[in-house]
């Protein structure tokens, strides 16, 4: 049994190429530079005013980001759990109600299709959030199972509130009971008489929450948050996707489609990636009876992987955009940079890179060949790189419960 519900809220206006989110009336006012882009078809700000101020809002005060465009699916029905367990590489049986877990899912060949989070909303009822549109795959996966898959991307308005003062801001906005909410926990609560679900989840490596509500409450929720700023209590800033890109790399979160080719979009053999190849072996649970891709991943034990996605700190101050990587200065080519940022807080070039992985070992030396411009003249330089096997940046605030009030 599968049902697809078309949202009454999403009405197509021919003049409007990109969909406005339920927060759009406010976002439009905050977005001074009008630097829009499409995120899953929604009109989304890349930058609101200046990238630096947005970045530092995340790292030193509080940031707000519209998460509505994120793909969301409601999964319920008698076979919901076995459906999810067959879909993702992690064991979902262990996920208690009101808890969230990070997952990836693979095709039959054990190559990653996408990543996302599963929210166990109520006993037997789940929400799957994904980076990319997954309805087709979910529907195919549900054939032969008694499970209902409903896309609710447009039915749920969501905001991410992240940063050192996120807890204080939310408390000041009127949210009660967040002190006991642990990382990856869910709280169903109310704000000014409407329902809001709060999850302690995020992508910054710092303290942070995500708020989920019916689109009809979107503006009230927004106003409650920004009321805190208006009252002069805490600073609060909207952030766009560019600032997000900086902090997610600092925090070591990978981006399917940017850091590696997803299986669905791969045309040439060998260009897709298994969870082990992107450094996510730790989410693969071989102990559960079965999941799609398990047999192929078990075969990796006999035929070891040859590529690895790694977190790379690159020396110097030249941005290693799309750089080739070598096993020594002018040595043999062993990889490429996929995404990279300058980290203001760490004062370093940080990158996600795909490198050779031989006999179960990462390269000993990695050098990036960096092309950069000086007054429109191209220059080339070499920079040594260091693999980081932990996130470049995180903070104890992220996991302290109750959170520090700052």
């Amino acid at each position: 049994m599968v049902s697809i519900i078309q949202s009454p809220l999403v009405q197509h206006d021919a003049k409007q190429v990109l969909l406005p989110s339920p927060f759009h009336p406010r976002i439009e006012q905050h977005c001074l530079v009008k630097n829009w882009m499409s995120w899953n078809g929604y009109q989304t700000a890349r930058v609101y005013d200046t990238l630096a101020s947005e970045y530092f809002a995340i790292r030193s005060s509080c940031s707000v980001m519209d998460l509505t465009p994120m793909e969301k699916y409601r999964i319920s029905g008698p076979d919901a759990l076995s459906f999810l367990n067959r879909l993702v590489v992690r064991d979902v049986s262990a996920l208690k109600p009101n808890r969230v877990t990070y997952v990836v899912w693979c095709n039959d060949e054990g190559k990653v299709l996408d990543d996302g989070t599963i929210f166990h909303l109520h006993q037997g009822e789940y929400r799957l959030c994904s980076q990319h549109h997954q309805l087709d795959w979910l529907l195919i996966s549900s054939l032969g199972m008694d499970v209902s898959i409903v896309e609710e991307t447009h039915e749920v308005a969501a905001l991410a509130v992240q940063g050192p003062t996120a807890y204080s801001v939310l408390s000041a906005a009127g949210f009660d009971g967040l002190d006991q909410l642990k990382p990856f926990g869910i709280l169903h609560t109310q704000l000014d008489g409407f329902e809001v679900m709060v999850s302690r989840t995020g992508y910054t490596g710092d303290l942070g929450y995500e708020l989920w509500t019916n689109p009809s409450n979107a503006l009230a929720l927004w106003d409650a948050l920004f009321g805190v700023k208006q009252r002069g209590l805490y600073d609060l800033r909207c952030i766009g996707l560019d600032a997000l890109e900086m902090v997610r790399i600092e925090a070591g979160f990978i981006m399917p489609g940017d850091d590696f080719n997803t299986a669905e979009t791969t045309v040439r053999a060998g260009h897709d990636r298994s969870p082990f190849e992107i450094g996510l072996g730790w989410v693969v649970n071989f102990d559960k009876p079965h999941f799609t891709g398990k047999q192929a991943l078990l075969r990796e034990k006999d035929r070891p992987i040859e590529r690895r996605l790694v977190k790379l700190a690159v020396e110097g101050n030249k941005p290693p955009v799309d750089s080739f990587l070598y096993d020594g200065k002018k040595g043999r080519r062993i990889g490429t940079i996929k995404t990279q940022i300058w980290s203001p807080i760490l004062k370093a070039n940080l990158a996600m890179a795909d490198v050779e992985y031989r006999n179960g070992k990462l390269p000993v030396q990695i050098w990036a060949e960096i092309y950069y411009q000086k007054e429109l003249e191209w220059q080339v330089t070499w920079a040594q790189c260091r693999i980081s096997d932990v996130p470049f940046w995180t903070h104890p605030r992220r996991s302290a419960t109750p959170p520090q009030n700052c």
Partner: protein
Amino acid sequence: MQHYDTIIIGAGHNGLICATYLAKKGQRVLLLEASETLGGLAATREFHPGFKAAVAHTVSHFSAKVARDLNLTAHGFDSPMVPMPTVGLNAAGEHVVLTGIGVDAEIIGVSAEDAASYRQYRQLLQRFVELLEPFWLKTMPRVGDTRWSSLLTFAQLGLKMRLLGKQDMGEFMRLAMLPARDLMDENFDSELLKAVLSWDGLIGSKMAPRSPNASVLTLLYRMSGELGGAHAIPSGGIESLVQALYSAATASGVEVKIGARVGRILIQGNSDGLKTTGVELADGEQINAARVVSSTDPQRTFLELVGVENLEIEFTNRIRRLRCDGYVAKLHLALDGLPNFTGLAKPDGRMIIAVDMDAIEFAFDDAKYGGYSQQPVMEIVVPSLRHESLAPEGKHVLSAHVMYVPYKLKGGWTEDARAALCQRVIDTVAVYAPQIKAQILHSELLTPQDLEQTHQVTGGHWHHGELSVDQMLMMRPTYEAAQYSTPIPGLYLCGAGSHPGGGLMGGPGHNAARKILE
């Protein structure tokens, strides 16, 4: 708890054959059959007191190697069999009659030109039959497998093609996918002859003369036996083949249980992956075995007995998409005496009612859109002529394969719909055997949906799933399950849904056993 090396699900001819090969090699084999009779689609059953028939009514390419290996003659199967003539019926009695085997084939009822073309046509096809001969009893290479043994199979085909000579090689490539209609139009003038010769490439498939695909390959498959494409009924009937297989099975130690429906294939998963551990019967009894071999169709095997929770998502989707709707219905008539077909001394042939290829095509057109033709085309035999015990003394059984009867009828297969079709079929037979209606004591019409129920075959499909290029050879039933092994270690397939396909041939049972014993 009892422990078996192998449990085989389904005692159709393929299940019996596979079981016997394994038991002969010393395995402890348990064969479980859901129904109360052996033989599956070839089972002989009473459809009216004193009158019996089998759904599969003739044998055309039963593997001589299997008969030899299992010593079936000693168990009562008369091989080689006497071929029966194939008769293209004409209402006025001006029939086209084909007799003889292979290159010695003879033809009556057509022009001298057609007769000459027929001889040439047979010779050409015979060369192609020999070209393909090594393939039917072989495990197909795995898609993407570059191991030597797999490449060798391809190399063999290549070599055989080289031996054909340049012109034949080209012809083979050209004909393999040619619609039957083009092949016939190129060779013959007689409309009736063309209809008859195209028949064996089409029956059992969702294909008509104008359909592109592999009707020539299907035809060559059916010509692969010693009868060169002719059909026969063993002297003891189809029953004697099933009996011989059963006798060979028990003689080699196979334990056979009837009335034992498997409800579930037991699968365990741990950190090493999945493993087949046995089966659970419909009554809840669990029986363990090192491996399970299923001769039920692939959809039933995977979607019902294994369960999607044990399968990969893309694989499941391929199995769900298998085309399994049957298009052949079965008519059984209990007759008070021998039917008299206008212009035939004795109805001891395989009689085809299809006046021309358009008649076949139009019947197919109706079925494509969920209807059935008012001018059904069919193949008729009177099996009681050869196998007397099918009917009481002096009485007879008429058995007909009726094409094209859709599995899914618009409006559904109600009692009325079935009765109306039955009447239409009888009326059509009566055009060629005008007195037959008075001889009918009882009639039974089984639609593909009925066959699905009575014989536990998805879609009531002749081959357990369409035998067409996309579901053939290393694609049968689908890649990852085309070498008899399946994605689940310890689970194998051995039924008509596997290479080379259906019909009373024994290829899947033979090949699966060899794969298991590898």
